[in-house]
């Protein structure tokens, strides 16, 4: 293509090393061989320089701030902290949280989630639900960074499956429902049972 005569082309001069030493390649090859042979022998006896982490067997440290799989926190008495306020469901950009609230027999607990489902396949792990929660009831600090299961259903985590560090692969039958809460007839009868959700 013709470029106007007044325009000056910018040419970058590359510094090249010439001469006999370079043109026969042997000195450069030998200095390269020195390096690779050093690494080879060091790794042949004891793998001193190997930086690979054999992933499924070895896991690297996961930062506490890493947004992994969710978990539902519990109060001191073992009951869920969640009060079913729908904050997380509202803010969730991928609409992966589904909550149904229910009235708890213990009157000191106003509401609790009868259903708390998270579809981990839809989740984008943005962490907005954790920020929105007024009760610190949902966290993403399980350290579970890879969820690889063989069926879609396994990714539907229900309320009790969102226990701390629950791993579906470790169970023969990974899908089980939420436990029913006891339905006491009076407040006095309910109080000792306020640990409604079994902590197993």
């Amino acid at each position, binding site marked *: 293509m013709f470029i106007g005569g007044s325009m000056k082309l910018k040419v970058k001069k590359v510094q090249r090393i010439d001469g006999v030493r370079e043109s026969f390649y042997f000195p450069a090859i030998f200095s*390269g061989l020195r*390096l690779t*042979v050093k690494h*080879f022998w060091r790794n*042949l006896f004891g793998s001193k320089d190997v930086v690979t982490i054999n992933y499924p067997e070895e896991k690297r440290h996961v930062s506490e701030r890493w947004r992994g799989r969710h978990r539902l926190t519990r109060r001191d008495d073992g009951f869920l902290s969640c009060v079913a306020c729908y904050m997380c469901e509202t803010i969730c950009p991928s609409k992966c949280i589904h909550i149904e609230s229910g009235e708890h027999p213990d009157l000191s607990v106003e509401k609790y989630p009868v259903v708390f489902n998270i579809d981990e396949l839809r989740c984008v792990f943005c962490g907005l639900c954790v920020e929105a929660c007024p009760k610190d009831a949902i966290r993403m600090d399980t350290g579970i960074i890879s969820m690889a299961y063989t069926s879609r259903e396994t990714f539907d985590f229900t309320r009790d499956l969102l226990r701390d560090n629950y791993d579906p692969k470790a169970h023969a039958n990974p899908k089980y429902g939420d436990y029913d809460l006891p339905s006491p007839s009076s407040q006095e009868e309910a109080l000792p049972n306020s640990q409604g959700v079994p902590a197993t």
Partner: protein
Amino acid sequence: MEIILEIIMIPAVLATIKILVIILMFAMPLGTVLTLMERKWSAMIQDRVGPNRANIGKFTGHGALHLAADGLKSIFKEDTMPKGADGFLYLIAPFFGLIAGVATFAIIPLAGPIGDFTFQVTDIEPGLLFIFAITSLSVYGAVLAGSSSNSKFALLGGTRAAAQMISYEVFMGLALMGIFMVYGTTRVSGIVDGQNEYWFGNLIPMWGVFTQPLGFLLFFTALVAETKRAPFDAPEGESEIVAGYFLEYSGMRWSAFMLAEYVALVGVASLITTLFFGGYHIPWLHLWESAPQWLVTIMQVIKFSIFTLFFCWFQIQLRWTVPKFRFDQTMSLGWKKLLPLSLVNVIVTAFVILAFA
């Protein structure tokens, strides 16, 4: 029993047995294991772990099962042929390289002769000229594969392979000329026995690498270029022309190309050992006069194998050290530098022999 022994001692039968033993028990297994070793060793060079996943239950054998996995995979893979390919040539091309690589072992002695029995398939008079003829044949594999694939990249790779191998053959012969002059023969057993002499009493063995140091460097370079391995792997050129001449192949035929490469690698290593590192001769062994024959033979096979293994390792190390030459660099290195150097080597050797002999 005697009849069996008589049948075995028929020259043709004996040669067949030797071929089978040397190729099936030395060349092919070593070449096959090297396909895995290259991956393991390159991993060590690059601070990685290398293949270690293939397993039967808990047993992985540090990656040894990858060999079986690779073999099974290639057998069961579909053998594809592109549309418009030249069928017959396309189908036979992979085996040219393999045959050429295997034929190298016809003249390589694994140990010294016991009486009339030699540990060598045949000790023909032309000797190394036979090797030159055979390595020239291996270029057919690349060229036929490239031209019959009906693919532009494969054709480019085939052309590059042809140009490169023919150019490097020129000074491969010239580099060995010095060896012929020093030992005065092209017969392999003569060259090997010539390296059993010593300089300054019993001080330095007259190995080819000491009598012909420049010839060794040139011949080694030429052989590495002949096997089309890095730094001379422009015919494959995975960064430019995908896989070069064997781009269209799959399954067992692709494996034949791979196996040919590694058998050629073993061939190069054993040729270098035979011609430049005393072959099977163990230096200074003649000082131990009462050595039993069987022990000497075993030690000779071991010495030969160790040197061969070392040069296999060295070629792999070289491949993972040196970046690829551009194709024009390959050609200018061959024609403008190594060819004049090998001519100088021949002339200097001739003058030295004239002066001292």
